[in-house]
């Protein structure tokens, strides 16, 4: 495993991911309270730059709410900027999806420095980076 330095703990703020690279692969590190998550910046839908999307919440409705719409998971939902597909920032799973999930990487903290542990040779690292579309 290769460790990629992201920055100090204080440099990674909630709501603003920090991007690092491992070869051609771009990885975003998100802060969720005192924890961190690292995901590849590539949407499993159409390979868009998902980690440049909006961090928001989502609406749900259930029997417990009388089937009325509720706003939940504020700050824990990543919205892909290409097609607005929703991912749970805690797990990387698509919300109400078909099992899609963001590719995640272990994050470790040593002496207040945050590292992403990246496989030394990612099977996808030779592919092109996400297309830089708006």
């Amino acid at each position, binding site marked *: 495993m290769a460790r990629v330095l992201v920055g100090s703990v204080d440099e990674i703020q909630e709501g603003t991911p920090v991007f690092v690279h491992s070869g051609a692969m771009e990885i975003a590190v998100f802060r969720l309270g005192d924890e961190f998550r690292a995901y590849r910046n590539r949407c499993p839908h*159409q*390979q*868009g730059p998902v980690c440049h999307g*909006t961090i*928001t919440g*989502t*609406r749900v409705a259930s029997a417990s709410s009388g089937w009325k719409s509720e706003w939940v998971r504020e700050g824990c*939902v990543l*919205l892909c*900027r*290409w*097609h*607005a597909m*929703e991912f749970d920032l805690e797990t990387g799973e698509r919300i109400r999806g*078909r099992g899609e999930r963001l590719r995640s990487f272990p994050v470790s903290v040593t002496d207040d420095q945050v590292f992403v542990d990246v496989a030394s040779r990612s099977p996808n690292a030779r592919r092109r980076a996400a*297309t*830089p*579309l*708006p």
Partner: protein
Amino acid sequence: MATKVLGPEDLVIVDCDVHVHDPPEALAPFADMPWRRSMEHLGGVKQRYLDIPGYSTSLNIDPPFPNDGPNARHVMTATQMRDELDAMDIDIAVLFPDHLLRMAVFPQTDYAAALGRAYNAWLADMWVSRERGLYGAVLAVPQDPEDAADQIRKYGVMEEFVGVYLPVAGVRPLWGERMYDPIYEAAAEMGMPVMLHSVGLIHPNFPFNVDHMTSRLTRHPIQHEFALMANLFSMIGSGLPVRFPGLDIVFTEGGISWVPYVMWRLDKEFAETPAEAPMLERPPSSYIKEMYFCTQPIEEPDRPSDLATMIDLFDGRDHVLFASDWPHHDFDHPRAVMRVPFEAEVKRKIMGETALRLFGISLPVPTA
């Protein structure tokens, strides 16, 4: 030796549906008076996403949330379009408007015709370019078929105009009616396919009377696929393919999975009541198989092979055209279509070769 997987960069990609942003103030200099004054005035009115009263009226009735689609992208210039298409390895594109997707609803014939003339002139002056691989579709206003026919003949002589855009959203009567024959006569005369394109709209005209439906999730497919189906029914019912046998008809922004249903349903109906369509010489499906269907929004079944099966159900390998719908919120990247497990020869057709032939665009593609 491993064979390289065919990628977007390996073939010529023709995108049959991209959108230029057409704010009223941009078109105003190309418009006749008195309509120019209205468009200049609208240019100073605060605008929401593709929603301008009197110019692009959507009757948007939902409260906005960030998750509803925050991707309000606009392409403002030909240079921007070229750069963004390059990022997707798209070589050639056919341009459609943004706001004027909704222009069929205007009750004032003279205003509609003026908008059509202004858009076509603006497109010719500011956007189309062989060097950039940007081609136009002449906007044919349904409110004034004779004026639309003049526009088709005027711009059809330019090699940068390769099709005729038929606005679908809110159109009444539907596009099969004989009042539109001047448009079809001009398109056939100029050898240009007609291209139907819809958009989200709430309006009394079927099938846009969806004000009682409670979400975009449920309205949006009706405003697109159902609208295309209704117009295809209308065209078959009026015998349009028989009356204009050389006219190519293209359906955009409806995906492809509805085509087998329409084909089989009309055949079933025709078997029972052929006298209802006395001009048809063959079952409806045989005409539908000669039409063209754009991929976007490409369906995404669990098994991509199901899409290949679906296309084969209407013998569509030579009649399906790639479209991205860039820059709209539900655009498809070329690789979303290229993952349909066809052999390379079929992928080359769908992604570009069929469109090159249909539009009469010759290669090599000049570079800017």
